[in-house]
């Protein structure tokens, strides 16, 4: 059964694109700007088009970091998209460097500038997916849309027990999907709402957890 999804509007991000995808999938959804005194939320999306440093500043000003931590401690489901995923890590270099929400270990750094490949990494690329309910009915080597210059290098999660993750290769191999050991916190470096049928399946899978 599809659960209602709430989209956290922090003032950054392509909220309307996420809402558009959920509407198309006929998933009941609602946009909200804080998690205070709101009950019966089980599925939350933290969307992202933004600069890491600015986004963290906004979350701090709105006292959302504490609220998000409280929310996931109760084993509710959270999906961070693009910078929304990066914010879930310990630290981000973009915009001068600042601490993240710290739900996952690792630092978000500028992608390596090698092989004469242009930066940012923009376009459709393949995710080497893990075995997870979030990837149900999605084929191996499916393409997803990326638009980012910063990311979490694959090596930062190697050896992390019980963390599931997906990897994408561009200049270096970076974490394009992450899931915590309790299976309630997820991050996608790609934009599922902009990844055609592959992305729509991914969002649908989130709604039926």
């Amino acid at each position, binding site marked *: 059964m599809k659960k209602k999804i709430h989209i956290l509007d922090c003032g*950054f*991000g*392509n*909220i*309307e*694109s996420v809402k*558009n*995808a959920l*509407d*198309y*999938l006929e998933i009941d959804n609602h946009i909200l700007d804080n998690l205070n005194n709101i009950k019966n939320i089980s599925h939350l999306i933290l969307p992202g*088009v*933004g*600069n*890491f440093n*600015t986004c963290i500043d906004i979350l701090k000003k709105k006292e959302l970091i504490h609220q998000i931590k409280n929310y996931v401690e109760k084993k509710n489901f959270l999906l961070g998209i693009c*910078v929304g995923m990066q914010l879930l890590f310990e630290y981000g270099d*973009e*915009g001068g460097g600042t601490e993240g929400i710290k739900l996952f270990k690792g630092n978000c750094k500028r992608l390596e500038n090698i092989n004469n*490949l*242009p*930066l*940012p*990494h*923009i*376009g*459709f*690329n*393949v995710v080497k997916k893990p075995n997870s309910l979030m990837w149900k009915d999605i084929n191996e080597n499916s*393409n997803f*849309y*990326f*638009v*980012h*210059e910063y990311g979490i290098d694959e090596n930062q999660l190697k050896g992390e027990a019980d963390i599931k993750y997906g990897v994408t*290769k*561009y200049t270096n191999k970076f974490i394009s999907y992450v899931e915590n050991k309790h299976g309630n916190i997820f991050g996608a470096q790609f*934009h599922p*709402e*902009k*990844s*055609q*049928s592959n*992305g*729509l*399946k991914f969002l*649908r899978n989130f709604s039926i957890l």
Partner: protein
Amino acid sequence: MINKRIIFSLLYADGFFHLSRNFRLQKVGNVEWIKNNYGFGETCNFIDELIITFVKRNPTFEDYIQYFDDINKLRKKIFVPIILGGRIMSFKNVKNCFLNGSDKVLINTLFYNDPGKITEFSNYYGKQAISLMVDYKIINEKDKLKFISYKNCGQDVGENIDEKFINKINNLPCGEVIFNSIDNDGNGSGINLDIVKLLANIKKPLLMMGGAGKPEHISKTLKLEKVSGVVTANLFNFLGTGLKKAREECFVSGIKLPIFDEEI
């Protein structure tokens, strides 16, 4: 490895989408015409991104309302990135684009007149959310080709396109750059590739626009290692199954593009 991109571009003003030839606009049809002739849920299986540029001169508040209203009608079944551009001069303009379904914004004149504003946008939305459009013309001066950029919808001369200009782009906090040939705009004669050599030192994803009239024009351009994508705005050349054929031609030519053929 990353795929190449085919991007479709629409020009909008006064409730209509327009065809452009050498930057002269011709009214084609309203949002219903676009939906009927391109059936966007289907068409978007054959494009990687969609650009919509607001080309109304001196728009009023009501013009913006109508524009965003039509964008919101169009994007219901679009699940590829949408780039909104045209008349972007302030942070408020950028914010309004994001509030109306934009995933990136397209900048042109501001690059020449007030590049500091672009830094302001990127500090908030990230530089990857900003695409730069460089409109240009080629002048043959004493048997030597000279490349000149233009601003204000091709009305005013911008700057010479040379190494200094390229460095300026590399240092600009934007995510990608589209070079759009005013000479070839809408003529369907093929994309000008003379400029690509000059752009060898661009460090951002490079997209080429202006002149794509048939599938081979797109595949020939995408074969160039330096080029990340092709943008086409010709509403008639790719009508019906045109974009599908262009994509198929690219597959035959060995160009790597994602396949989107699955319904959900």
